[in-house]
């Protein structure tokens, strides 16, 4: 009975989607907002990566909402899983030699790569969220290879809080100086394609990179501690 109703519902939804997708031509320019951002993005924000200037400068308020959602999810996961801590300890077998040697060799290289991606967010494709995910994957490698050890949680929480606070404070300072609106770009824009250019955008992306990296590492730590 339940399968029958589900199939009927799915056929209705699928036909609706197909009828709408027929009307949207593939590969033709559809809106004018994108053209405005491509033509005037470099003079107004100073970043060569137009997607970065859209995420941080033109639509910066959506990025604050996204950082808040990630923060609430991380805190919610910690709160839901903290209510039960088993007291028995299992025998943890150590990982193989290849994994431990590879972890020791690769961990600083992965951190370096993630740092490169979020520092150069305004020059090359990438940015704070991508670099943060790469840093979190380096911490997952530690949990897989050096079993039984944890990353220090106070360092995690401090990095996460400072990253979020720097973002909000830079936005609020933009209310006082510069263009007098929230998240205005008030530092000098500099030349294109230099590392120290584009105003507040690299500073915001570095803060977001630290925040997302430590948040995802904290989520992994909570789940691994729960499964012990």
């Amino acid at each position, binding site marked *: 009975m339940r399968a029958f109703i*589900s199939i009927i519902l*799915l056929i209705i939804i699928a036909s609706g*989607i197909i009828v709408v*997708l027929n009307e949207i031509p*593939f590969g033709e320019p559809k809106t004018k907002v994108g053209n405005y*951002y491509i033509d005037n993005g470099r003079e107004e924000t100073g970043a060569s990566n*137009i997607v970065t200037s859209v995420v941080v400068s033109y639509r910066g308020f959506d990025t604050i909402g996204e950082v808040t959602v990630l923060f609430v999810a991380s805190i919610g996961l910690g709160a839901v899983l903290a209510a039960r801590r088993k007291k028995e300890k299992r025998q943890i077998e150590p990982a193989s030699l290849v994994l431990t040697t590879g972890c020791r060799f690769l961990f600083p290289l992965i951190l370096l790569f993630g740092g490169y991606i979020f520092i150069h967010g305004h020059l090359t494709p990438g940015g704070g969220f991508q670099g943060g995910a790469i840093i979190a994957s380096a911490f997952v490698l530690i949990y897989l290879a050096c079993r039984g050890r944890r990353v220090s949680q106070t360092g995690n929480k401090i990095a996460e809080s400072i990253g979020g606070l720097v973002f909000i404070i830079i936005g609020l300072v933009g209310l006082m100086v510069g263009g007098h609106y929230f998240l205005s770009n008030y530092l000098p824009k500099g030349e294109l394609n230099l590392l120290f250019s584009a105003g507040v955008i690299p500073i915001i992306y570095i803060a977001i990179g630290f925040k997302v990296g430590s948040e995802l590492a904290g989520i992994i730590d909570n789940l691994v501690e729960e499964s012990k």
Partner: protein
Amino acid sequence: MNIPHIISFLQGTIYYIGAFGLIFIGLLIMLLKSNLIKMIIGLNILDTGVNLLLISVGYISKGTAPVFSNPALENQTMVDPVPQALVLTAIVIGVSVLALALSLAIRLYHHYGVLDLREIREQRW
């Protein structure tokens, strides 16, 4: 229905077909399965399909990535940057929803002892 017709038809719509297929499979899993972990996996597949659909709507033919790293890229057509920025947000929100849903599934399992929703009396459809 010879081969050049099929290839030229696929070239125009393969992204839409792939995204629609992922959305359909995700909805199918969420409606027909009763194991909680499988429903969460279906939710994640649905999320991936929607993100793929949003990006493929913003594609412009013969366009390149909207990054001006070279002075030779002045008069090149570029794809729309706005859907890419919004899908960045949507992917992060999908990860947050997945993390919170998995933690709630763990608590449900500790409380009831089973993961099958048909056997938990209050959760039956």
